[in-house]
């Protein structure tokens, strides 16, 4: 790795930290600006109880002071504080619990999508305009356009209510099968289309023609030359996609009752559970930033022609 690359990576990491800080700051102040509070419920609590709770959690202090304390706790102790709603639980623990499931779900979905997508995309490109290509294109177009709540609900009705092959709740390993399929269909279809067009592009290049002319076997051309080069756009897409799947699985988590981070995030906003809102926002933002960073760096590794500046 040359010094230019190193400098680039350091610069990107610095930018990533800055991005997360901006997210923290905006979220913190916007969150406190919206009406309602963690201790405003349908049935009112007494003024003394309200005051006691606010002082216990430091909410009676000026906003700037709260902001300062919050940043200090994160930087010095990586402490997101206690949840205001789930009394007795720490935000870090709740997030860790949710992330365990969400990451498992997300990673399996992303890699399933990647493997199936690349295979189907290559097949479609190599059999361009044949029946199999057309079928693949019809299905991928359908999956790209169908929102996950429709696919999810349909699969729930078919596989767990009608056929009763798979459980409807995502609390067990078997229960994760349907959510994984639902989550991976869209990126799978997208990767298929990406691979297909990229592969077609590569197959038309001069060096492929040269290889063919030299008498290189079809297998070697495809796996040795075409596939590797046609994966560059897929790699750029993969990093953000993984982050998107992990963070954006809320709808799917809801449909299948999967105990992931998405549900915790949404309920924390409804509850005005400030530390939870902050904690989940930071973790999710960091995830996206890191994934983008990794895919940018990978991009460079796969294609040395790319100039990072």
């Amino acid at each position, binding site marked *: 790795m040359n010094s230019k690359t190193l400098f680039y990576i350091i610069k990107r990491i610095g930018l990533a930290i800055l991005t997360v800080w901006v997210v923290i700051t905006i979220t913190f102040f916007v969150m406190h600006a919206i009406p309602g509070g963690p201790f405003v419920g349908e049935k009112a609590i007494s003024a003394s109880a309200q005051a006691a709770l606010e002082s216990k959690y430091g909410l009676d202090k000026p906003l700037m002071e709260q902001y300062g304390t919050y940043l200090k706790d994160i930087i010095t102790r990586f402490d997101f504080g206690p949840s205001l709603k789930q009394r007795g639980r720490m935000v870090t623990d709740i997030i860790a619990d949710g992330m365990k499931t969400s990451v498992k779900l997300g990673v399996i979905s992303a890699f399933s999508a990647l493997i199936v997508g690349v295979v189907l995309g290559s097949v479609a490109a190599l059999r361009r305009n044949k029946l199999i290509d057309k079928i693949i294109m019809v299905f991928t177009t359908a999956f790209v356009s169908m929102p996950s709540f429709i696919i999810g609900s349909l699969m729930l009705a078919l596989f767990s209510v009608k056929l009763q092959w798979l459980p409807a709740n995502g609390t067990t390993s078997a229960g994760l099968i349907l959510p994984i399929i639902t989550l991976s269909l869209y990126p799978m279809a997208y990767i298929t289309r990406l691979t297909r067009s990229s592969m077609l592009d590569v197959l038309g290049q001069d060096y492929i023609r040269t290889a063919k002319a030299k008498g290189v076997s079809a297998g070697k051309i495809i796996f040795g030359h075409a596939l590797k080069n046609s994966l560059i756009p897929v790699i750029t897409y993969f990093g953000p996609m993984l982050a998107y799947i992990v963070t954006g699985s809320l709808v799917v988590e809801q449909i299948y*009752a999967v105990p992931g981070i998405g549900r915790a995030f949404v309920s924390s906003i409804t509850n005005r559970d400030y530390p939870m809102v902050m904690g989940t926002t930071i973790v999710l933002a960091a995830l996206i930033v890191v994934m983008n960073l990794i895919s940018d760096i990978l991009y460079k590794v796969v294609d040395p022609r790319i100039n990072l500046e």
Partner: protein
Amino acid sequence: MKKILAFALAFVMVFSLVACGSGEQQPATKGENAGDASQPLAVCVGSEPDTIDPALNSAVDGATLLVHLFSGLAKWKQDDAGKFEIVPDAAKELVEGVANEDGTVTYTYTLRDGLKWSDGQPLKASDFVFAWNRAASAELGADYGYMFEIVDGYEEISEADDDGKPVNPDAKLNVEAPDDSTIVVTISNAVSYWNELLAFPVYFPVREDVVSNESWATDPATYVCNGAYTLDSWEHNSLITLKKNENFVDAAEITMDTIEFYLSDDANNQLSNFKNGTWQLIDDVPTNEIANLKTTYPDEFKITGQIGTYYVCWNVNEDILPAGSTLTGEEAEAARAEIRNAIALLFDRNYIVEEIGQAGQVPASSFVAMGMTNPDGTEFYKTAGDSKDFDGYYDVSKEAIEKNYDSAVETLKKYYKFDETSKKFTDFPTMTYLYNTSEGHKAIGEYLQSALSNIGITMNLENQEWATFLQTRKNGDYSIARNGWLADYNDPICFLDMWTTASGNNDVQFGKGDHAKVTGYSLDLTPYGLDTKVENGTWAETYDVLIAAIKACTDNETRYELMHYAEDILMSTGCIVPLYFYTDIYMISKDVDGFFSNPLGYKFFMYTTVK
């Protein structure tokens, strides 16, 4: 051919994903072990509870968990005829109180022998004393801290200065444990719901050394309880498993060994799990499925009473008189009350419950909910209001719709211009109806909107996200809003004391803002043997005084008469427009015997068996 290929391809795609998906596949459980006594009961009563600390919980699903985990002095029981009663649990008997000279009443309870905590330590009377003081303290800030309001000493505990700081930080409830098995508690005055409070989760005991760990109620390892079950495992957001507590004194009566509480708040997901046989009870179904489920699952779909009222509330300070009205002060308020009461007559409650609610709700014509009973056992709502012809404050039968409509229009004509050709009012100010975002509330809002537009009143709809909505409504930043109230215990006072000036639940803003100066209310308590008589008083001088009198009243009959009186004053303002009394719907498998659900919505699974 193409179709077959397409299908084949789809299957290959789906199963290739499954193959990479998971190693440990299990078939969906389908009650294969039918008849096995050790088969757990799988239910879903809600999503992840915020807390299962009995003092902090304020949710119905949390209470369901708590009645299985803890045992208070009293408990709910359903007899063979289906009637509910409160029976002794940890106490040997639910003794009668002894009246003191100052009007307070003292109860002396004796604990049963052999009571133990789930970790084997003996349960002591002092554990109750500690638990009650903890739950009532401002320091804990429990949602249900006010459930101890009736206990002598609570006033000192809850008293706060302007900054909300407690005035008497060391104050305690008047409850003592002279020895390990005796609890002596003094309450401010005799109330018929005292025994019911003893069965309420916030009155359950906790042990000081256990709860000194603030996270005690989040982890099975530190969760020490004294009820029929122990907390066996808690996979957050997914599953809570309860196992029979062998240290429980009545363990022999508990027929269900293991209960699995699945945690889901998605009604569609719950229904799917019920339909495929994975869960035997679900507490929620999608509203648009109700009509269908009633016919396809006639034996499983259940509707039970729930003590609560769905209503519309006006902001008392919202001026709805036509522009240019010369009325002021008491006269203006009296006119507004008449107008609001007339508008209440325009709504067809039968349409709302049959076409929108669809869950067996009962059209309401009074605020104190169905299910509340008078001392003689009759329904409180049936004796509300003056009319001999109908229950409550207006006739909500189908036959009365036209008559109500005509009478409302006649009343409104006194204040607004009526165009006889279009049959519409032309100068009623435009209003906005505020509700919290939900399809059901929206449908009701739209119905109310159309009913009003029939006579020329424009009402816009505005929805807000729940927490914002609560804040807006509490602050009184609305003209007319959706509202609902569920009882905490079977006594009408929990519907009435929320409307005192200082109450945190006084969304109508009675006695606040301009209304503080309106002297249009009268109160005469002389027929009840009290020397209070106010004419043309403010809300604080009348309603607040009446509620205080009810809370101090020691004669049960009189107390109920006074509560009817309070509801009369409340309803005369027209600010409360009851629409229907809530019901509770759930689905339960036909294979489950011995289940019951109480009027507060708690579900009891300990005596169930699964066929």
